[in-house]
């Protein structure tokens, strides 16, 4: 009897999560509907105009989709040279040693730092450097935001990749050594092919994290509502336009912001799903 009750309670609590998730999607879709209906779904996606003129409001998501994708992809690019060596260091070369565990603790610590602190560091330390190097006169740019984002996602990419590298079977590595391979060859020919899809998925999950990052990006990207013409110019991301403007928005503008939220939700969900599928199909 008590077993049955326990089962029911478990079932109820577990079904809450999908219900809440469905509720969020439902709310996003209903509130975004006005914008999609007014502008048309594809026009809303591709229009680069974001104009508040009363009576002729024009809202399009393109500048923000571009801003989000640019910052995320650049962050990924900058993050690889840091996270991959860390993963190899802790997962293969110094596996199980004290120094590896210290390093991985520090990397994990990076994940625990609140994003506003990264934002402050970027604003007061990195921005002046960017200005001093004459990369961009105002300091705030897609590049500045991406650099800080890259540091933020290193722990996600590094610790997960390290796990996959650790899981490569010893038999495989030892048979390679017995054939006379050097360590570098083992890494290149055995570890990467075997753990490859796992490492790839860890980067996908890191992207998922970078996509939705709001505070840091808002502080560093410059918040201009136009498609950025280069990586040193200012822009705006999907998350930061919402954070900036929901306060005074109503009517069509509010609906457009929610529509951007829905698109961001869909992009993030798709990316996470790809990551999950890749993990499932990894060879380990």
């Amino acid at each position, binding site marked *: 009897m008590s077993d049955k009750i326990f089962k029911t309670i478990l079932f109820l609590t577990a079904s809450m999560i999908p219900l809440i998730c469905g509720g969020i999607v439902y709310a996003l879709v209903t509130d975004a509907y006005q914008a999609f209906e007014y502008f048309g779904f594809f026009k809303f996606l591709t229009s680069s105009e974001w104009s*508040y*003129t009363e009576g002729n409001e024009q809202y399009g998501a393109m500048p923000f989709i571009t801003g989000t994708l640019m910052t995320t992809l650049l962050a990924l690019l900058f993050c690889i040279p840091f996270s991959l060596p860390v993963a190899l260091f802790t997962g293969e070369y110094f596996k199980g040693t004290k120094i590896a565990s210290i390093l991985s603790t520090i990397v994990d610590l990076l994940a625990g730092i609140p994003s506003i602190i990264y934002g402050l560091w970027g*604003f007061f330390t990195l921005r002046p450097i960017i200005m001093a190097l004459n990369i961009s*006169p105002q*300091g705030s740019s897609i590049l500045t935001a991406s650099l800080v984002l890259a540091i933020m996602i290193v722990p996600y990419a590094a610790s997960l990749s390290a796990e996959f590298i650790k899981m490569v079977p010893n038999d495989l590595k030892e048979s390679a050594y017995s054939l006379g391979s050097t360590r570098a060859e083992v890494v290149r020919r055995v570890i990467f092919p075997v753990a490859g899809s796992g490492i790839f998925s860890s980067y996908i999950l890191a992207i998922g994290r970078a996509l939705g990052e709001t505070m840091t990006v*808002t502080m560093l990207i410059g*918040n201009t509502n136009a498609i950025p013409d280069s990586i040193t110019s200012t822009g705006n991301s999907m998350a930061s336009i919402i954070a*900036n*403007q929901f*306060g005074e928005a109503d009517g069509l503008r509010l609906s457009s912001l929610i529509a951007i939220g829905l698109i961001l939700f869909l992009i993030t969900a798709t990316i996470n799903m790809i990551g999950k599928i890749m993990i499932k199909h990894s060879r380990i």
Partner: protein
Amino acid sequence: MKQNLFAMIVACLALFAISCGNKSNQNSQLSDELSGAGATFPLPFYNVIFEEYATKHKTVTAYGAIGSGGGIRNLKDGVVDFAASDAFLTDEEIKTMPEVIHIPTCMGAVVLAYNLNGVENLNLSSEVIADIFAGNIRRWNDAKIKELNPQAPLPDVEIIPVYRSDGSGTTFVFTDYLTKVSKEWEAKYGRGKSVNFPIGLAAKGNTGVAGVISNTANTIGYIGSEYAFAQKIPYAGIKNLQGEIILPSTESISKAASGEIPQDTRCSITNSDAKGAYPISCFTWILVYKEQNYSKRDKLQAETTVNLLEYILSSEAQAIAKDVHYAPLPEKLIEQCQNNLKQITYDGVQIKK
């Protein structure tokens, strides 16, 4: 015996005093609670003034700084005693509501803060400001800026305008000014709480804009005066319609309202033609219904609301405004507002005598 007599006299006097006190209390009895909602811009002023009012009259005023739009919505729903707004109701909005009385409570301004190495004083004109924010003047050593600042060592670098990324009354006042002074601005960008500025970068809130300016060389941006005065941020003097270069100060802001103000006070005072006036000044209003009998409010509540408004218009409260970096209303305007208060009624009976 003598002592007893003395005690009795004291007791009598005390009783008399208490009864007197009671009497006067009954004459000016006020409700315990008022509620209002609206603008965030005057919040620091209202916090102090409502606190002061509470210690004087035991009336606690709950104020929700939910934005001007939200305040007006609450008044429409009849859930507050007053709404506070940085913008007066437009003619269309007035038609959708019962008659509303606008009472200005204090004044503020938008200042142009800048960060320019070696430049201590910067003078600007309406034309130059519009050109900078429209992207027509791109460099600090432009001839038009030089003409206004012959002494200043203006560098040959790009100007970086900074504006608000969030919707804001500050942006409204600033773009309202630009719309009045520049035909080009009016045609291309117009006025509003959010406006598409063509160049520069944006930051959230007065704090965000001030932060970017103080940390980025060669920037210029607009900030609410109450914030700029409190934080002592360097700001530019602006040429007004009289041709004088005026620095923003509580005095020069007050002067912007020293000209003709319409009876209902619904007007924008940017680009004021008064002498000594800072040209980007603004009012902030409290809005109350002319007929106070709504949402089953009793007469006491209505009287307390009017009493609070009278207090805000008193010289004591206006002096407090100055302490918290807002500009007081000019004498003439206060008289006008006192008269407007007389229009407020309960069941058609005038409240303020």
